[in-house]
Structure formats: C-alpha cells, structure tokens
C-alpha cells in the first residue's frame, strides 16, 4: 500500500520549475555592477524568508526523486543518521572523519542530490562560523604543546602554531562538516510529513509531534504575512532606508502584529479543529513497512559504525 501511495503522490506533485529556485541576478545588490552597498535589514529579512521557502520547495523536490536514501523507511533513516552522528562525535582521528565525510558524499550521489549544492550547503557554513571560531585555538596561547610553525617570541616565550592546536582545529572543522552533512542528507531525502511520522513511531509523544507538524505548517503562513509587511514597507521607501531607530520600531511593530495574528490564528485553528470533531485525541495513520533494503541498510550502517569506531580506537591517540 505504502509504495503505491508514494507512487500516486509522486505523480500528483509537480516538480518546482528551475527558475523559481534560482536567485534573481538583476536584483542582487552586489555583483553585476561591481559595487557593493550595505544591504538594509528589510532586504535581508525578505531574502531570508524567500530562502526558507526556496529551501522547502527544493527539499520536497529532492525527497520525491528515486534515489537510495529516498527508498528507505524514514524511521530507519532517522535512527541510523543519529547513530552515525554519534559515531562521528566519538571519532578522534582526522583521517577516519575524512572517510566518513567521503561516505556522505557517496550517499549524496546515490540519492541524486546535486553534489555541488550539497558541498556548498555544508562548506559555506563551516568555514564562516567554525573556522573563525577555532582559528585562535591553533596558537600556543590557547592550546599549549609542540610548536610546529614558530611565529617569534613574546616576553621571552616562543609563540606559534602548535601541532595540538592545529589537530584540534582540523578535528572540529571536519567533525562539524561530517555531522551537518549527514543531517542534511536526512533532511533533503525525507519529506517533513514522513519525518514527523518517523518521530512519532520513535517514542516521541504524539502531542509533541502534532505541535511540531502544526508549527512547521504555520511557519510558512506567518512567513507570507511577514514578507507582505516588509514588501509594503520597501515599496513605500523612496530613499535608501538606513535610519536605525525607525527601523527598529518597524521590526518591533511587525513582530508585535505577527504575534497578534498568530494568536488569532490559533483560536481559529482550534475552532476549526473542534468543528471537525477534535477531542484532544490525536489520531494518526501510519503505513510504514520495514523492507529488505531497510534491513540491508541497517546492517550496513551498523557494520560501518563498528568499523569506524574500531579503527579509530585502534589508531589510538
């Protein structure tokens, strides 16, 4: 039944057209003209909102493709992803983590995720945050130890980059990248509804899953009204809008209005639920079935995790 429903869903849902998922070149404030101006908070919020929408559309497209990870039962996929992320957290050697990251890339290819997008999504984030944060840790001020790149003397002490510091920084960067990669793999190959259903069958209370699902749905609704408010403001702005004070007042007013809307909406949703027979009992429908491919996948993951952690401990340090 499950595969038949999936087939119907796949046929019914059309794929998002290419142009909708691309950024508009002409509207970009930098680039084409070669002059970069500071982006106002309005543009930042509008583009942030649209990138959330773009990501949601893109995820839905990828999750309906026919790839390796898309075929798996979402429960199996969620548990194995968690296990792999824990294994990545336990590993203490950079080469082992590199192998694990290569495995993530391989899974991305077999799941028909555009490789460029997958790498960019992880590595655009990692160097900006993690890299800058751990950079000072390579110096002997922070991580004491064996100096490999001497940078002179400071009050009689030798200072420089220590091997311990470099290894620690490398370990964190590659571990963060590997963990994010596997979580992104899970998020990209599973539609949100299937992910929620998986959570529900994994001892997460039903009420909590219901809240998660409804929150996710109304994020997009509220995002729509926020975008409307910001676009209205942008449309009425003649000059470059850089007055911080009025900007803050506008942001607070938008947030306040949004809370009012959210509260009114929750009341309406509640009444709609009651009129459709809601009695505080969440009824759910689950049609998941463990198939041979899932069993094979579990065995494969368990073996790899044992292998990865075992090799890591054997290398030592």
């Amino acid at each position: 039944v499950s595969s038949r429903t999936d087939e119907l869903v796949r046929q019914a849902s059309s794929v998002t057209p290419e142009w909708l998922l691309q950024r508009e070149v002409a509207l970009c404030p930098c680039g084409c003209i070669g002059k970069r101006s500071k982006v106002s908070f309005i543009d930042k919020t509008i583009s942030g909102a649209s990138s959330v929408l773009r990501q949601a559309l893109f995820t839905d497209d990828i999750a309906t493709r026919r790839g390796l990870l898309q075929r798996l039962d979402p429960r199996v996929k969620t548990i194995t992803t968690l296990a792999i992320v824990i294994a990545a957290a336990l590993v203490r050697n950079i080469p082992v983590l590199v192998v694990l990251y290569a495995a993530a890339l391989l899974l991305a290819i077999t799941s028909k995720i555009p490789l460029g997008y997958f790498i960019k999504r992880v590595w655009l984030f990692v160097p900006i945050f993690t890299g800058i944060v751990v950079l000072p840790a390579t110096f002997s001020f922070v991580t004491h130890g064996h100096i490999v790149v001497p940078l002179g003397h400071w009050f009689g002490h030798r200072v420089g980059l220590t091997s311990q510091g470099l290894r620690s920084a490398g370990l964190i960067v590659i571990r963060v990248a590997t963990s994010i990669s596997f979580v992104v793999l899970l998020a990209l190959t599973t539609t949100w509804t299937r992910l929620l259903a998986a959570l529900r069958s994994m001892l997460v209370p039903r009420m909590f899953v219901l809240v998660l699902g409804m929150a996710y749905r109304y994020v997009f609704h509220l995002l729509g009204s926020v975008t409307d408010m910001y676009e209205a403001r942008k449309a009425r702005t003649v000059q470059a809008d850089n007055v911080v004070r009025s900007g803050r007042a506008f942001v607070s007013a938008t947030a306040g209005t949004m809370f009012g809307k959210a509260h009114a909406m929750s009341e309406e949703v509640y009444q709609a639920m009651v009129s459709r027979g809601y009695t505080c009992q969440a009824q759910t429908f689950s049609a998941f079935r463990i198939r041979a491919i899932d069993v094979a996948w579990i065995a494969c993951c368990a073996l790899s995790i044992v292998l990865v952690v075992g090799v890591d401990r054997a290398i030592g340090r």
Partner: protein
Amino acid sequence: VHIPDGYLSPSTCGTLGAAMVPIWATAGRRVRKVVKSRYVPYVALGASFSFIVMMFNIPVPDGTTAHGVAGTLSAILLGPWAALIAVSVALIIQALFFGDGGVLAIGANCFNMALVLPFVGYAVYRLLSRNMTLTNPRRALAAGIASYIGINVAAMCAAIEFGIQPDLFKAADGTPLYAPFHMSQTVPAMALAHLTVAGLAEFALTFGVIAYLQRANVPVLRINHPDVQVDGVMPERRPLGWRWAFVGLGVLAVLTPLGLLAPGGAFGEDTPANLDLGKYNLQAVPTGLARWSAFWDHAVLGGYGFDSGEHPNISYILSAVIGMAVIAVGVYAVFLVVRFINRLRNNDDPTRAASASP
C-alpha cells in the same frame, strides 16, 4: 548561541538532553492545565512565532544587523512553560530542517535558549514589573532589561558548556577533542558578544514589541497577565514574596563552581605556611598565630577536599553541597525551635488563647 554538532562531547549532549526530558514533560502538563484542549494550536502557533522572530534582522548602529532569540518575549506573551515548548519546537525545526544548530546538541541548545533564557528573563521581568499596570511604559523597559539579562545568562551557560570541554576531553598528547577553548577564554568572549551586540538586539526587540502591544493590542498582552490592572493606579503595592529569597539563594548556589576559576587566596586567610613573611617585615610566624592556627585539625572536609587530595574539583563541589545542606538543616532547626517557643507563649497567654479559640 546555536551550538552545532561537534563542539560538545556526546556525553555533555546526552546529559543535557536527559535533563530536558522531564522538564519538557512538566512543561507539557503545566501548559495543558491552563489552556486545556487549545494546547496544540496555542503552542504550535507560539512556536511558529518564535521561529520567525529568530529570523528577524534587527538593525543596530553602524549598519549592521543582529538576530534575537526572543525567548523572554515568548515567555512574557505566552507564559514561561508554554515558551519553553514553543522555543524548543522552533529550535528542533531549525536543527532538523535547516541544519542550524546540531541534532545531538538539541538538548544543550534547548537547555540554554528554551529553559534558561525564558525562565531567567521572565523571573527578572516579574520582579521588575511587580507593581506596574499593564500599560505602564516602565513595564516595557522592564521587559527589555529582563531579556538583556536573560540572553546574557544563557550565553554564560553556553560558555560554561564550551569551557569545560578541553579539561574533560583531550587526547593523550593534550589535543582538545571538542571545543578547544578554556573557560577563562569562552566566558569573556561570549560575555563581550552578548553584553554588546546580541544583548542590545534582544533588548530592542523585546522592549519594542511590548511597547507596541501596549499601544496597539492590549488584549494580546492580557493573555498571560489576566489579573494585572490595565491602567490607572495600582490599588495595593504587593511586598516582595518569600520565593524570591529562594531564587536568589539558588542562583548563588548554582554559581558556586565559578570559585574554581579564581586564582590566589583571600587576604588574611592564608595558613601560616603560605604566609609571605618578608612582605610583612616578619622574621618568623608570630607565636600566637602558630599556636592557635593548628588548634583544630579535625575538619571533615579539610581544605574543601578529601584527605587523599584526589579529585579536587569534585570534592570542592561536594563540599559546597554538603555545606549548604548543613546550613539549611541548621536554619530549619532554628525555625522549628522559634515556632515551638511561639506556640508555647501563645498557650501561656490566656487573653490570646481566648481570642484564638472563643
């Protein structure tokens, strides 16, 4: 303050995650008791609201923008328990769907931003806005200050979580395995970032939203303040309750381990052996001091540690816990004695006894 996977050890994540489970359960029960069957839409829309508010860019001077967490704001509008669930759900959606903040670190992130931030912020807000009407402008200011304090305390928690990593988890050659910075580095770094940019953004957002709702939408503010008078003069000024004393003592108790960071000792508390005699122009330890300083050497936890001197940090914290327990028992005993004497005196006094039981 979003912590990604890889910065904290699995055991730290596991501990904080396990600590959050009973708290989530309690929060669910408390919220359901108040909003009853409205629970799901009420909390879900609150979560959507927190998710989107976390996306807002708040302009701060010099053309830069910053994000707020708005935990205190959610707590003021929805109540602290509902805010706990709403912010947690928003963080879980961010982690699972956007890879923003780790999946293993969900427990740690929820602890900092969904538990510590709203509860500290809400406690400060309640304390500051005690005798104010709902539309009092100072109430918005109280909310802003509360959010500023809340986000800084949450950042401090994150800094402590980061800071304990290099001491607890390192390889044989001293390579830190997780976050590499010590607490003496993480605490100032996080404090600097949150006392300035992030704290101000949070202040501006919370203050602005409450001030806006006071002008434009008072009924929405009333949801979580049903018994606060809207305007005019408050009829009675309530004195500060006993509970705040416990809150203050609790905060002090939680901060006790910070003593481990302090270098050196307090002036005038050195043992004779540690005394720098030359500094005070002395040739020898004064005889009276030498004689009486060793008068009592039967302390149970001498020097805040075990006799063997092992595990100095654990024994220090254990000493603190035992000390607090002993003081609490002592104070309670005094309280019982005082109450007992009061009862005796009331019984002896015939006029009081007569008025009490006619």
